[in-house]
């Protein structure tokens, strides 16, 4: 369970929701425990784990989107983003705000880079090519920088 903090950070960067972190991390590790014996190459464990984490988060975000369509009023509280100031610093609030403006795929990409994954590993995790990773990463960083405003009023 040495990975729990890293997976928690990844989940938070992907979903932008503190209340999802524990549940989704738990789901990810349960899937890991159940499927780890089917892992072909133990050296690729980290890539595999973060692919599992990414897919779990994207499934959750899809479910959340569907719930919003079918229960527009019933689960209204789910649409309310985490208030600014609920976390530690102005920079962190700004980063959360900027991440919230990006697509989940781009958030995953940036979170994987912050995890220290190489472009090749990210390409493997996301089932794409290194060139595509580089291009998407460049765009994602641009978008993040556009929305990153540490002194924004809200």
């Amino acid at each position, binding site marked *: *369970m040495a990975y*729990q*903090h*890293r997976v*928690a*950070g*990844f*989940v*938070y*960067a992907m979903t932008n929701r*503190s*209340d999802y*972190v*524990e549940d989704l*991390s*738990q789901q990810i*590790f*349960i899937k890991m*425990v*159940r499927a780890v014996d089917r892992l072909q190459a133990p050296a690729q464990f980290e890539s595999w784990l973060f692919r599992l984490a990414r897919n779990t988060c994207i499934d959750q975000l899809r479910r959340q989107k569907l719930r919003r369509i079918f229960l527009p009023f019933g689960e209204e509280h789910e649409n309310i983003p985490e208030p600014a100031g609920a*976390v*530690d*610093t102005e*920079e*962190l609030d*700004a*980063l*959360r705000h*900027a991440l919230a403006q990006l697509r989940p795929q781009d958030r995953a990409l940036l979170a994987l880079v*912050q995890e220290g994954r190489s472009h090749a590993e990210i390409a493997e995790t996301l089932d794409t090519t290194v060139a595509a990773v580089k291009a998407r990463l460049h765009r994602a*960083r641009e978008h*993040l*920088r556009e929305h*990153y*405003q*540490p*002194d924004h009023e809200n």
Partner: protein
Amino acid sequence: MKTEDQAWRDLQAHAAAQLRAGFADRALRVARGPQDATWRQLNAHAARQLRPGFADRVLRAARAVAEVPSLSSQFALSAATAVFCLAAVIFLQDRSAQLADERNLADWERIVLSARDAQDAPDNDSI
């Protein structure tokens, strides 16, 4: 009367007064984008959301999930039950049809025997 230069300087001073303290620092931070330290804060915040005993809870939940039959095994059990029921129905249907045939044949034999008896009876009378 103010010179044009003086007017420009006043305008610049007025504009500069609108900038809040720490403007240069903020501009630099925006230009550089989020730093590694900010990402680390994000990870630390996320890590704090995990309640103590997280690993134990995961292992307990994983064991509980492992004890629940998998979807494929449930499907296999359902399929086996369906096949067994179908075989039982076919067997019973076949058996009941066979019994009905035997009963019908016995009835026919009885009818044939009765008919023969009836046919033989007038001959005896005529003799």
